[in-house]
């Protein structure tokens, strides 16, 4: 049920699992999650309308949640290309998601296009945003405002993304001593 797409969106709703497995389905999911560890996969729970419960979720909250199987670890850039993403498109997606997060979850499409347009070709910008919308990463309303959509909530750890972004900036603005050594080593290798 979790692996196969049964509806328009992948994953399965809690109430569907409840119906199929009974009220103990959260325990079944725990066992499955444990089993999936060895495959570097995990069961991801996305609560309704981003209402992540503070403590242990109730059965009612779980019934309304959607469950997916996602990659547990991280992909390398090479692996991301192997699953069909060009570096430009992936960077564009990263920028669009980060930008929308920085604007508290909502940004005018025009502004996102402007940010992407700084590093992507003009014709690609609109096409890429449409693609991100089609894939379910972003959604657009009638007022041309962009929001994060279900796939971003399922696949992207928003907090980790922002933390990593902040850290990456710190590294570029305040280079460590080790970095210089690496550069020197690279230069020597190239010689």
């Amino acid at each position: 049920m979790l692996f196969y797409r049964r509806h328009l969106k992948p994953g399965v709703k809690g109430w569907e699992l409840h119906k199929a497995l009974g009220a103990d389905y959260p325990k079944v999911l725990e066992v499955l999650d444990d089993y999936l560890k060895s495959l570097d996969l995990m069961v991801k729970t996305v609560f309704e309308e981003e209402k992540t419960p503070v403590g242990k979720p109730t059965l009612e909250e779980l019934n309304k949640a959607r469950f997916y199987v996602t990659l547990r670890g991280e992909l390398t850039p090479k692996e991301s290309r192997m699953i069909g993403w060009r570096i430009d498109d992936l960077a564009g997606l990263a920028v669009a998601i980060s930008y929308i997060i920085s604007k508290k979850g909502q940004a005018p499409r025009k502004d996102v296009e402007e940010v992407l347009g700084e590093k992507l070709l003009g014709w690609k910008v609109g096409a890429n945003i449409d693609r991100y919308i089609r894939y379910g990463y972003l959604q657009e309303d009638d007022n041309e405002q962009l929001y994060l959509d279900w796939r971003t909530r399922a696949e992207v750890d928003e907090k980790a993304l922002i933390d990593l972004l902040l850290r990456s900036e710190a590294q570029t603005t305040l280079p460590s001593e080790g970095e210089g050594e690496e550069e020197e080593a690279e230069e020597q290798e190239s010689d």
Partner: protein
Amino acid sequence: MESKKVQKKQGTEKLQRIIEMCVAIENHTVDPFLLNVDDIIKVVQEYFPHWDKPEELNLDSEAIHHLASVIKLQSEWVKQRSTSLYTDPFLLEEKITQATKDEMVGVFLGAWHPLVELEQLSLHSLGEALRYWERLLPLRERWPELFVPEVGIGTASWDELVKQRVLGDKVFSDELEVFWRELKEMVKVKGVDGKMRYWDFVGADTYEETVQRAFMASFLITYGYATLEVRPLEEEIFIKPFERPVAKIATQQSVSVPISVAYDDWQKWKRGELD
């Protein structure tokens, strides 16, 4: 005595300015950290011994009250920004624009856990599908109304088309010639100077017939059998037949003249009111 008065006046003005500043901060029009609380407290302390009247003391307490509100706002600001969830949007935006594509991808890959899906047929699902296919009734039985009986291709005779009112019982050009002759006859009898009023020509006993005649009259004019004479001031339209059809009419600059043949107009014509 005079210097005390001046000092009091200065103090009052300073307190009023402090209150105005605090109110602006409370209304979120000014950054709360623009106000140096220590400096303000020093000013309040400096002038406090001079106050003896109730309104002066009231002003002093009002200044302290607003100052307390500003300190509260400053504290909230610090609290909000110190939470782990808060990130300065400007800082983030700056980072996004500064990062290279590779950096951005690297960052994203650290937080991206793509969905895993399977798309695969199993023997079980194939078996299920075949069993379903066996049970499935043919479309002809499920939606019989969708199937219209097939009709072979054949030919239709002239009489059949006339019967079905696809064609008239006369060739159109013959009909037009007859209509043209009728116009010429009527103009001879009722017309003046080789023309007659449009409505007197197209008007008939029934409205349907009138519309039909107006339709035919339009072809008479288009094909050069007749012409119209419009007198806008008198609001009169005359139709004038040619002795022979004018072939050059289509090559000239032609003007469309819309003529309303409304039911009300027809009734007015019948009553003789359409002058």
